[in-house]
């Protein structure tokens, strides 16, 4: 049995020790069957859970789908009339997500550009840390704050003010109740803002220094470098950030249920209390008795929501893949790790 000489500088380097250990262990025990079993077992469990998830949700919702047919996609929700459509909730989901994106994307990108390119270091460094920690605030806490602080604020000040704005006021008719599609959108915007800022900042700081220097050498101002060099260079990362944020806004259930007003009628105004797929699931799931058509209808809402979020994610992946010869797209997880991981 031989031993490996220590590294030249005398330092112990864990993987090299490991190589030495492999020598010592060489053919000490028979067969690698256990390791293969572990790998295959892990993969089988993972695939099994995934398949079970799809199967169970489809199975539980099958009677509602059979009852409603394709009309489930646009009909309303009315258990008294045995009508379990996802249409109104889907509209609510899309509206709240749209409001959230309209608010959070411009503000988030402006903030990220400022932090990555324009701000002096003494401003950028603490603000970056702050924003990244805010990305870790649980959504239930944002929902709680929205319910207790923002609801009265919106009912008394923000919504009456918006109704008086010319032209735009048309979007905001009806009584200012506080809890509304609009408020849910704002709460979602606050929830996804740190995600957008943190991820697009990482994408922007990934643009090569040489590209920036090329811009500077052409006498571009700082802003021109940011606008013409950094933003186009970071486009894929920014798209990934927005896709991930949109996915979260679509799927958030609890925080939205606390502020959206939970009304099953079609929302004709942004000030109207409404419901999203997520909030409707939260509210109707416990009400419905097991084994009834209503329960199956709620699970059908889950399937529709899952379908929408998979479509959005797949759409995002395709968008990211659009350019030829570009490196493979980073999935949502890599993006999450990029923000919170030590590398950033």
């Amino acid at each position: 049995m031989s031993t490996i000489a220590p590294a030249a500088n005398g330092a112990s380097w864990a993987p090299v020790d490991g190589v030495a250990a492999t020598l010592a262990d060489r053919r000490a025990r028979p067969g690698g069957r256990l390791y293969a079993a572990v790998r295959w077992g892990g993969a089988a469990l993972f695939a099994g859970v995934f398949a079970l998830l799809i199967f169970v949700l489809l199975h539980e919702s099958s009677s509602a789908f059979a009852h409603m047919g394709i009309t489930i996609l646009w009909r309303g929700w009315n258990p008294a009339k045995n009508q379990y459509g996802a249409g109104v909730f889907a509209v609510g989901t899309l509206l709240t997500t749209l409001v959230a994106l309209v608010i959070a994307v411009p503000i988030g990108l402006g903030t990220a550009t400022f932090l990555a390119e324009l701000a002096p270091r003494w401003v950028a460094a603490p603000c970056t840390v702050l924003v990244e920690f805010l990305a870790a605030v649980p959504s239930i806490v944002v929902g709680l704050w929205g319910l207790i602080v923002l609801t009265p604020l919106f009912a008394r000040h923000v919504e009456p003010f918006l109704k008086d704005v010319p032209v735009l006021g048309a979007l905001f008719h009806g009584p200012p109740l506080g809890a509304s599609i609009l408020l849910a959108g704002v709460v979602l915007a606050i929830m996804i803002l740190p995600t957008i800022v943190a991820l697009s900042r990482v994408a922007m700081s990934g643009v090569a220094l040489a590209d920036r220097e090329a811009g500077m050498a052409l006498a571009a101002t700082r802003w021109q470098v940011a606008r013409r060099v950094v933003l186009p260079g970071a486009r894929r990362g920014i798209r990934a950030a927005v896709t991930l944020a949109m996915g979260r806004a679509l799927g958030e259930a609890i925080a939205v249920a606390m502020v959206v007003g939970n009304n099953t009628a079609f929302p004709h105004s942004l000030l109207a209390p409404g419901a999203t797929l997520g909030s409707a699931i939260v509210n109707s799931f416990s009400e419905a008795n097991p084994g009834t058509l209503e329960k199956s209808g709620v699970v059908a809402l889950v399937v529709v929501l899952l379908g929408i979020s998979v479509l959005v994610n797949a759409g995002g992946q395709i968008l990211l893949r659009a350019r030829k010869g570009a490196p493979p797209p980073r999935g949502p997880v890599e993006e999450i790790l990029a923000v919170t991981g030590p590398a950033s």
Partner: protein
Amino acid sequence: MTDTTLSLEGTPPATVAAGHRELVRDGVQRRLGRRRRVGNVATSLCAAALCVSLVPLIALVAYVVSRGLPALSVGFLVHTPTPEGIPGNGIGNAIVGTLVIVAIAMAMAVPVGLATALFVVERPGTLSTALRFGADVLTGAPSIAIGVFAYATFVIAFGYSGLAGSFALAVLMLPIMLRADEEAMATVPDDLWEAGLALGSRRARVVRSVVLRSAVPGIVTGNLLAMARAIGETAPLIFTIFGSQFYAFRPTSPMAAMPLTIYTNATQPYADAQRTAWGTALVLMVLVVMLSVGARAVAAHLNRKAR
């Protein structure tokens, strides 16, 4: 402003050059002035965006701290909930519940995530691509969907229990862990694999002694971050653990958890309930932030040790 139509005929070449230089300089200066003004306006707009995004976020955290701190006491952290209006309210059972549920979820998800990641790393192919795709779909899946899934598989069969909540959180964390583990293992240089294999050792030995050892910082960070995400989730727990007013250590019984405590208390009109909600929100927030700071610190420490 200079006359832009400069007649060149009859002027000596040196003067033409000077005239051109002047023209160019004037033009450049005029345009530079405009470019600077545009840049200043845009920079101010971006600075304004920073202010706009920081205001609600700081207001949120400040509000949680200011409403949560008065609720905090040692009693609050160890007692169980009391009926409305009776002092001595606490969330001890919810803290224990969260810790037990998350610990069991980790015990379920970490080994499966690691084993699956090894499969994906060792056997690139259709099955691995499908597993990765599944992980991406699951990561993007709304957590409420996972809650309903856990209800339909676990709760219908065995009733409400902490274990059902752990299962839901494990399903939530699994795809994140798989991708994080895979990413960490992919950074191990091929040379190290080959060095190990060239010595004639079995793959299991190479993986255990070489690959896992150098991927450990990434694996630990990724798993801790997945845990930090899961600990604040309400949606997977709301249909699974049912909630409880008492200390429950048996995972097969209904349990309490902090996010659920916030949710149920926030939607009640009593002042005491809202105090509890804010206090719990503060404890939960501190726990999550500590976990993400801890994940970075552990990663930094392990990285230093490995070098």
